[in-house]
């Protein structure tokens, strides 16, 4: 039995589709029928059901209800889900409106979304009351659209306020021009990143650009569909949650709290890059099995990451490596990991850097697999890509009227952009400080201690002594230096105030 119960909240189209895929895989791993929520004929469900399900009824009538809440601003995706999932989900936890967000963050966050807020919080309260102890809340959403980013962030913010003790994980899909369906993606994403930085405890970044490449190159799919991408994401999500769902003599539960304790060295630097090995196509995995050392090598290779960046060129601040499946040779895998640690770039200020987990129960598609969540400074490259697109649109004020119409102001948008710029700077600083070998040459730790606040590494501290070697992630030259100072004043008008004003 697990003590930690986890709740999954899917928001928006992408979130719900991934949610469906995730719950299907989880049901399969536990031996639960996806359409009825009952254990498969004549079998006891496997593993620790109470991690993600609540158990209702007894003996012959027992059914397992996912601790899931699904929210959307338009009904079509949810109706489809209801049609395919039978009586698995609690209908009361499937919440929707009819209008949709129209790909606009502001509609989800300020407008339409607000009307759903109380209902969702009410459902969450009822889920929380069914738990002995909430281990964490996992959000599945995309940041490109309107619902996932706007409503998703509204929920994250409100839940964090209501339950400050519960860790919130956001599994966020970042948009990519290749899979793009909305032009205003850069706006939505940047707005969402600002809130994720402040209110989420960790954000697992799934970069659509990388997902397409993985599906194409590693799974050999000519034209990857959204289902294929969702299947890839599910591999990682099941890997991460495996230790919360199974027990074993060597299995240690790595709760969400434990994950963030290990992966977030400084508040705010919590954007994690996932990677998975082996990335053999699922239908082929039966015929191929790779050794521990090979698997570790594959896990750390740049093309196994679910974000379009090169972690080998950045710095690993921390990484959680989770083994899964029958692994008698785990000590050997540890040795391989130790050898790997010598080769990958670590920051000099976190000498240990690794969290290692192990789950005996294998996944569906692979007998042995490893999942990694890395806190790598290269994630800034991905975020920067989005910021660049944001700046292109914002320079011409393109599409801005949609947001202004919902009550956002240019001041506010500039401030948000600056805050996300600060995040990039923090990562960059972490990267450059990691490079310096001499400990004495660290950025003044005294300054950062005194200036302890939400973004302690950002604006307050003196700039890193290391000269800006290559302005790779620097926010656009003209905006960065100027916005930082007035930023402090502008920031006083937060999105939250904005909403309050609008209410009045």
């Amino acid at each position, binding site marked *: *039995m*697990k*003590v*930690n119960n986890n709740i999954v909240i899917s928001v928006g189209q992408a979130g719900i589709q991934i949610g469906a895929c995730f719950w299907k895989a989880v049901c399969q791993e536990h031996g639960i029928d996806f359409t009825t929520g009952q254990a498969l004929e004549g079998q006891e469900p496997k593993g620790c059901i109470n991690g993600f399900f609540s158990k209702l009824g007894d003996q012959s009538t027992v059914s397992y209800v996912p601790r899931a809440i699904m929210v959307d601003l338009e009904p079509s995706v949810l109706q489809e889900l209801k049609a395919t999932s039978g009586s698995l989900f609690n209908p009361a936890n499937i919440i929707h409106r009819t209008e949709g967000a129209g790909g606009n963050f502001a509609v989800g966050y300020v407008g339409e979304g607000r009307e759903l807020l109380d209902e969702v919080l009410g459902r969450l309260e009822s889920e929380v009351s069914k738990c002995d*102890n909430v*281990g964490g809340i996992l959000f599945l959403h995309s940041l490109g659209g309107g619902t996932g980013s706007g409503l998703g962030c509204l929920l994250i913010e409100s839940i964090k306020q209501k339950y400050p003790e519960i860790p919130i994980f956001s599994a966020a899909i970042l948009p990519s021009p290749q899979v793009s369906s909305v032009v205003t993606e850069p706006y939505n994403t940047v707005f969402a990143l600002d809130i994720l930085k402040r209110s989420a405890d960790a954000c697992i970044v799934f970069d659509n650009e990388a997902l397409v490449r993985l599906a194409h190159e590693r799974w050999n799919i000519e034209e990857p569909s959204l289902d294929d991408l969702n299947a890839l994401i599910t591999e990682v999500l099941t890997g991460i949650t495996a230790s919360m769902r199974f*027990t*074993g*003599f*060597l*299995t*240690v*539960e790595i*709760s969400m*709290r*434990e994950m*963030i*304790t*290990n*992966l*977030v*060295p*400084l*508040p705010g630097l919590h954007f994690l890059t996932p990677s998975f090995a082996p990335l053999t196509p699922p239908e082929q995995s039966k015929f191929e099995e790779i050794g521990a050392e090979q698997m570790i090598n594959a896990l750390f290779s740049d093309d196994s990451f679910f974000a379009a960046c090169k972690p080998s060129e950045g710095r690993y*601040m*921390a990484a959680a490596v989770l083994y899964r499946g029958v692994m*008698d*040779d*785990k*000590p*050997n895998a*540890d*040795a391989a*990991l*130790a050898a790997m*640690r010598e080769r990958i770039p670590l920051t*000099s*200020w*976190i*000498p*240990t*850097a*690794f*969290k*290692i987990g192990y789950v005996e129960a294998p996944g569906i598609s692979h007998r042995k697999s490893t999942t990694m969540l890395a806190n790598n400074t290269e994630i800034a490259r991905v975020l920067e890509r989005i910021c660049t697109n944001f700046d292109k649109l914002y320079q011409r004020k393109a599409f801005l009227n949609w947001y202004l119409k919902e009550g956002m102001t240019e001041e506010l948008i500039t401030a948000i952009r600056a805050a996300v710029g600060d995040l990039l700077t923090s990562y960059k600083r972490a990267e450059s*400080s990691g490079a310096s070998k001499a*400990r004495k040459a*660290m950025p003044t*730790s005294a300054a*950062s*201690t005194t200036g302890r606040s939400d973004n*302690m590494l950002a604006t307050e501290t003196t700039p890193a002594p290391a000269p800006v070697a290559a302005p790779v992630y620097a926010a656009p030259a003209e905006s960065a230096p100027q916005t930082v100072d007035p930023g402090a004043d502008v920031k006083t008008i937060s999105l939250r105030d904005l909403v309050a004003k609008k209410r009045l």
Partner: protein
Amino acid sequence: MREILSIHVGQTGNQIADRFWRLILKEHGLKPNGTPAGPQAANNTHQEVFFNRVRDGKFVPRAILVDLEPGVISRIEQGDMGELFDQGQIVKKLPGAANNWARGYHVEGERVIDQIMNLVDDAVEKTVSLQGFMVTHSIGGGSGSGLGSLIVERLRERFPKKKIFTFSVAPSALISDSAIEPYNSILTLAKLKDNADISIVLDNEALFRIAKTKLSRSPTYMDLNQIVGLIMSSVTASLRFPGRLNTDLGEFVTNLVPFPTNHFLCPSFAPMRTTGNEGLVRTNFADLARETFNPDNFACAIDFENNVYLAACALFRGDVKQKEIDENMAAIRKSLNFATYVPTGIKIGVADTPPEGYASSGLALVNHTGISSVFDRLVDQFDIMFENNAYTHWYQNNGVTRDQMAEARNSVADLSQSYKDAI
């Protein structure tokens, strides 16, 4: 009637418990459910050291199993030893400490410590003359380190005269189990330094290295825990079985701890062979003694090169003759690099009953200044992270201030220095 109460804390602590109690049951001729395996099984041993005899001839271990994350304990309960432990000995229903010493010590720990101390009181009441406590835990995780520290601290408060032995699994230099190990370890070591009588330091990497070179197959974590189990069983063997040279916990402390805080010991077990079905593992005594004191055989990565022995103790079990001991140990003593001001020899204990599967075995417990390298490594890692504020917010949010962390760090650094001064 020299009872010992074992307390197993955290995942590592309980995995060790699983191996340890299996060995102990076999040595005392008990079945996994605690009933005697044969009519003469109960002869010639002092089961009461580790077991509490209840009605219908069942023996219940004097042990308390504590974990903030119930996985391992649940597995023990569901396994063949399921009937061995009493439900009243187990504390497990709690969310984990999330690898965070501060949560184990403050947040979660405070919620269970009273319950645990009540169980300890109950267990102590059942003893006639308690010798002391053995605590197994790891110092790098959250539950074992944080809650383990709290338990040791409370035990010291409540039982100031009883001996507290800890078997502490230290992080290995090679690979970390968690990124914030240095913080957890330093905070724990500072508490152990103040509150434990003897801390036996083990590290997974050294255990793995031993297992890899000595076993004919690739080692699993079970093998590593098996070695720890053998060490624990040997430390207490002479209390449990009649022998010519008895040693109790108090005697260990007197012999092995020259200065009060320098009580961190390193163990070694010999012979390291796989025990199969083909019969007993036999070793002649000269080889056994040599292997026992072979630097490669120590279960902790300490620096033997530039350091000296402060004290050493050897315990032999099974088929060992006094004459052989006298002949060989003098030579061994000469070959070891003792501190110049320690003129005495190696403290020796002998018990007649060998561990299951061995004809004879040897155990060394040494107080060696080389252990300071373990502390130095952790202090270095701690400093680097601490200066950059990495991860410190997790501790501050859970009730450990920066000053307290710095204090613990200085305490461990002093400890390391005191070992260097002892050379």
